[in-house]
């Protein structure tokens, strides 16, 4: 598909090239294990080589980016990536930094930065409900990635931020994290949870709607009252910070919709991953978020050949060369079947994606774990 133009449209390589030169945020998303981290790192490397000050933010706890960049370790401070060949462009020299999101630490920082007093911050930080929330809650990772993106973007330190999204249960989690929080903070349920800690024992029953009252009684009955009071205490301590959370959530949401942002959906040529990619493309369109390219990693391509028929193959067993030739033919046939399977899957996706270009990166012979590997990937992403 490389270099293909459809309906006079710009080739996908050029679209992605333009994103790398002019956008401020590129979000790479897709199912787990499709090479998202590698794609994000490759795109960031390209941007730095085009003269932009670039940071790639990875969230994955398996530290794959560290491996991709040949680094021994990475933490949630921005680290310069060694061995880049950054160019000067427009009076500036490109840079490449990498950072890994530490979910718990980011959450703690957000609390400290936004609490009106250190006492309130430590009240929250020591709350048992907060402690499990900040390290185990599904969705916290996504939400903290958004907080970090917001922070990096607001700092104006970077020309381009490339975000590698968490390996989500579904693509939905990532996209919905900012809004879910906003919804949650505005929700009535929260207020009902807030109330019991604020009101003295006997009177609160009268204030509650029947449903909420029953819910709380049931919740208390099921969990023991300590959990409920931890939760209530947590939300109470949180009061006054909601506006800040809501504002940032709204700002990130708007940033994701802005023309300065580009989404790149990453996939592999497997049916399940492609399904997820198509679904994600649909969601982005619904949210009016700019999807610019679909990257399909690990694609197998085998040129069509006219093969001898099976019956004549037995004659090859006579010599060592013949046996090797038979193995080479079997290898070719095997990969041809895989190539046909993938071509079908990609073709179906292309039909659904309506206008978004697909960039295919072949299954490279070795693992991509250094800058040269990323540059090789970039030959397929940028032509």
């Amino acid at each position: 598909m490389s270099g293909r133009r459809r309906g006079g449209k710009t080739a996908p390589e050029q679209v992605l090239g333009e994103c790398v030169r002019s956008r401020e945020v590129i979000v790479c998303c897709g199912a787990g294990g499709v090479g998202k981290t590698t794609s994000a790192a490759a795109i960031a490397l390209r941007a730095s080589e085009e003269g932009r000050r670039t940071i790639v933010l990875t969230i994955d706890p398996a530290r794959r980016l560290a491996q991709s960049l040949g680094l021994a370790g990475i933490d949630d401070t921005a680290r310069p990536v060694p061995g880049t060949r950054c160019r000067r462009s427009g009076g500036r020299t490109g840079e490449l930094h990498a950072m890994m999101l530490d979910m718990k630490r980011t959450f703690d920082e957000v609390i400290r930065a936004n609490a009106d007093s250190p006492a309130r911050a430590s009240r929250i930080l020591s709350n048992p409900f907060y402690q499990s929330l900040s390290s185990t809650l599904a969705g916290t990772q996504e939400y903290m990635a958004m907080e970090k993106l917001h922070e990096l973007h607001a700092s104006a330190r970077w020309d381009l931020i490339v975000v590698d999204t968490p390996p989500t249960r579904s693509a939905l989690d990532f996209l919905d994290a900012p809004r879910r929080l906003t919804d949650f903070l505005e929700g009535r349920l929260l207020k009902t949870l807030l109330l019991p800690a604020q009101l003295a024992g006997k009177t609160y029953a009268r204030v509650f709607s029947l449903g909420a009252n029953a819910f709380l009684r049931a919740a208390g009955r099921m969990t023991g009252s300590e959990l409920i009071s931890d939760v209530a205490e947590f939300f109470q301590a949180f009061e006054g910070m909601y506006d800040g959370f809501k504002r940032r959530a709204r700002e990130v949401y708007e940033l994701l919709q802005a023309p300065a942002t580009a989404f790149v959906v990453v996939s592999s040529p497997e049916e399940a991953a492609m399904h997820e990619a198509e679904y994600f493309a649909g969601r982005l369109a619904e949210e009016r978020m700019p999807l610019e390219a679909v990257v399909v990693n690990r694609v197998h391509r085998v040129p069509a050949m006219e093969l001898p028929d099976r019956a004549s193959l037995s004659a090859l067993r006579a010599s060592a060369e013949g046996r090797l030739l038979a193995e080479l033919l079997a290898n070719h046939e095997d990969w041809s079947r895989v190539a046909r399977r993938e071509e079908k899957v990609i073709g179906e996706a292309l039909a659904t994606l309506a206008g978004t270009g697909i960039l295919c990166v072949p299954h490279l012979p070795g693992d991509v774990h250094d800058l040269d590997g990323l540059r090789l990937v970039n030959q397929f992403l940028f032509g």
Partner: protein
Amino acid sequence: MAAESLFDGRLIIVSGKGGTGKTTVAAAIALAAVRSGRRVLLAEVEGRGGLARLFSTRPFGHGEVALATDLMGIAVEPDEAMLEYLHLFHGMRRISRVLAHSRAVEFATTVAPGLRDILVIGKLKQVEGRRENGVPVYDLIVLDAPPTGRIVPFLSAPRAASELARLGPIHSQAEAVRRLVEDTNKTKVVLTTLLEEMCVSETLETTEKLRAAGMTAVAVVANGVYPRRLEALRRNASASAAEDLLAAARQAGLSLDREGVEELLAEGKIQRGRLALQRSQSRVLAEGTDLPVFELPFVFAERIGPVELEGLAAAFGARPAGAGRRSSK
């Protein structure tokens, strides 16, 4: 370790890095267990519909559906599991209706720590305990579990919940679920991997993380293993090699031209590179863990369907269908 002892427990949890074919492997394990004479429930938890696609059935949800003889499937949905839970254990029919119409379920399952996870595992515990005439309805449950990045929090959810809710029925239920998950005779954690650098290192990291959390994996499944071939292909197969092959082709009466042979050689060299990588990663895996490693062959087919799944199941060395069948009724 023979596959038989893998099937001896009540619950097999299949995790692995994304893209390692977790769903396919879980299905193959389930089929192998069916072939060994067991009644099996194959469960998915992340609402991807992967099992339905694999078995070419209509998308299914929280209710159990038949996937094959003696093999049922279920897609556990946390929201449904929560309502069911309130129903079953607290008789809160009215409340659960109120809850269903409020945002409470969404709130509880997205905001409360690990609640989604414990609801999912709790549902499996409930199915595990189901009996008909005193006999378990299922001999074995195979779970297509969350990927390695989330598996430790997922499996620790019952412990976290039982610590958080320090008393009351949630505490005791979480405790019951925790006992099932942490009982290595009943629950076996299996990790899928590809024999590639990143996958193998993540697999080894995960075995450590599981151990640190007080749980142990019992086996690794290396998926997508290429067949050993092309060993006679020299690394720098030169022009003369192409000549030799061309001569062999002519001798056998095959219509192959020089260009075709060159192409085959080029493809062969790429495959040799992959095989070398596979060999070295296989060694890294073997050196990094004491766990038994099952190898599943790479599927070179135009689609992965029931026939291919049976082929993969056979790799678990199960007895052929019909041998030693046990009745569950």
